[in-house]
């Protein structure tokens, strides 16, 4: 088997490069995406290759440029609209929801909106409260949107390509702390038409004792926790959601019906969050009768993100929190 090591950043970069090459209607706009090579260097080299027409630096006006991106999508182009972080998408959220997500329905199928909104989401390191919010639950709430949350480099590549080729509005939630993390990628995944379907979760690690469901960076922590637990004979089945909406409830249910235990792990706040949705679905579906203990959520602490390192570290789930929750659930 042939593997190469690719960082998440490079996987995103390559995916965009290939899709820009493949379809002339695809273009990228956002703050610093062109001449700065991207605030987080995700679009490095693209402006040099494709020029001003296809890689567009915008002024710091999210509501305006998100609206412009949506209008361009309505008129036949395929924009990738970058938010420097999803915290800034709040300025533009009306365009994402009311202009993009709802339009195909309101027009009874006359007007489609093939757009991707992408950028880093959730906690970073030391960027404090206004720059650390996770938007998976807010966007995941809305019909008309697809919401994707990749973890690995392979996820990033395959899901971004799928998102760009999708004829509908896709919110693509990256993670800044994952950008520099390298992953082994198969030869197959290097194909220009390598796509990962939106809406399908992946079992990253098989196990029989408990189902651990997560998305984005937290998947790494779940796998680390699983490795520690394995030494004590506890085998976790770690599911990488890959997509927030539509949620692959079937994959989770199938796993729970095998393991009889469930915890969810996310970086976002607990109330009305991704974990809350998963637990509700399990309650309502066939897997409930297979639970030997209540399903629980491991989440970020219900506070705005503090700055000091010791406080920040204790504001998001740590490996020990996952291990603790697994053991509590199994001993219930």
């Amino acid at each position: 088997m042939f593997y190469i090591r690719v960082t998440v950043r490079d996987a995103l970069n390559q995916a965009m490069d290939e899709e820009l090459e493949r379809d002339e209607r695809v273009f990228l706009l956002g703050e610093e995406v062109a001449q700065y090579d991207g605030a987080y260097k995700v679009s490095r080299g693209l402006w040099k290759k494709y020029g001003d027409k296809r890689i567009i630096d915008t002024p710091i006006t999210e509501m305006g440029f998100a609206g412009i991106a949506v209008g361009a999508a309505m008129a036949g182009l395929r924009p990738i609209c970058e938010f420097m972080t999803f915290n800034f998408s709040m300025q533009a959220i009306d365009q994402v929801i009311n202009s993009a997500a709802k339009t195909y329905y309101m027009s009874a199928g006359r007007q489609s909106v093939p757009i991707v909104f992408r950028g880093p989401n959730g906690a970073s390191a030391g960027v404090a409260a206004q720059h650390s919010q996770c938007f998976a639950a807010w966007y995941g709430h809305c019909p008309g949107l697809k919401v994707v949350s990749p973890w690995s480099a392979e996820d990033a590549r395959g899901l971004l390509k799928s998102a760009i080729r999708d004829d509908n509005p896709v919110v693509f939630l990256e993670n800044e702390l994952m950008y520099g993390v390298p992953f082994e990628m198969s030869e197959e995944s290097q194909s220009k038409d390598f796509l990962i379907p939106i809406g399908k979760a992946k079992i990253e690690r098989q196990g029989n004792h408990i189902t651990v469901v997560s998305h984005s960076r937290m998947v790494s922590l779940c796998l680390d926790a699983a490795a520690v637990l394995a030494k004590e004979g506890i085998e976790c089945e770690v599911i990488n959601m890959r997509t927030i909406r539509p949620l692959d409830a079937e994959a989770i249910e199938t796993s729970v019906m095998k393991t009889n235990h469930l915890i969810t792990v996310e970086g976002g706040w607990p109330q009305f969050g991704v974990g809350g949705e998963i637990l509700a679905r399990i309650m309502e579906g066939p897997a409930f009768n297979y639970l030997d203990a209540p399903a629980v959520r491991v989440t970020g602490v219900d506070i705005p993100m503090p700055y000091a390192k010791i406080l920040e570290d204790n504001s998001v789930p740590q490996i020990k929190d996952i291990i603790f929750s697994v053991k509590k659930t199994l001993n219930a």
Partner: protein
Amino acid sequence: MRKMLTIISNVLRGSASRNGAELVSEKCDLHKLEEGPPLQAVLTREEGLQYYRTMQTIRRMELKADQLYKQKIIRGFCHLYDGQEACAVGIETGINLSDHLITAYRAHGYTLTRGGTVREIMAELTGRRGGIAKGKGGSMHMYTKHFYGGNGIVGAQVPLGAGVALACKYLGNNEICVCLYGDGAANQGQIFETYNMASLWKLPCIFICENNKYGMGTSVERAAASTDYYKRGDFIPGLRLDGMDVLCVREATKFAAEHCRSGKGPILMELQTYRYHGHSMSDPGVSYRTREEIQEVRSKSDPISMLKDRMLSNNMASVEELKEIDVEVRKEIEDAAQFATTDPEPPLDDLCNHIFYNDPPMEVRGTNPWTKLKSVS
């Protein structure tokens, strides 16, 4: 340009003057423009009759909607356009159907001028399956080819319109986008963000402010520190004109379209107009303005009367001819209203459709966990 118009009009005068007339209008107020639209324009008989018919159709359609709303056959929001007909009709005659247009929620007139039929507009208002959006959009969400609604969020349509213009420039198709908003929306921040980007990137976008003097119940003086909406684009050239004069609107739109198509970037037009109805059907429209004011506009500046008087005084049509058009229009509206009140509502099967485009069928959760509904593209 002016010379050519005079020559044409002399030729026309020479032959039967029923074929057309040269009409003179007042100079527009200009902002950062050396020259404005021509002061003289030729109106042919065919054009005059067509504009008359279309404006009358909009007028009668809106009045019928008023009736149906009061009978509770139309529900929810209904923002009527009567009084402003010269804007929609004049703009459309200044551009091509292959150009693009987007507006806010007072959109029934534009849905018509952009290719919708009275039948499908009215059936959309009554929420029937024959509606232009199959009953799923309602008054504020009607779409046709190159017409992007119908938008409910004040001001949001302006960046969208600039995005459409960006696509025109990107694709190099020589098309432009007309992007409308009202005096109320004119103070929205996202509009200024859009002015900036449209100007920076020279987008072929005509921004048009339909100034009907009131944003809901707030008069322009109470909402805007500067009511010179045609100047609010600052670095964007602008013109202000009488939006009740369909010919003025046409000539200004042609002028603006030429400006955009020649690659000069965006331009801003302010049309001074008036709405007879209140903001919407739930607003009687007299708590913040006087009945005398409304009556004065009706008697002195009604766009349809103005066109009619011009055509009659220039011998371009007879009273009987115009009456005949009125009768035809009335019939069309009656037929459409009949359809709109008898067409069935959308089937419940359609409830969850049109979530995603080009996707395989999917399941949508109903109101309870046991109800799983089907959704197709």
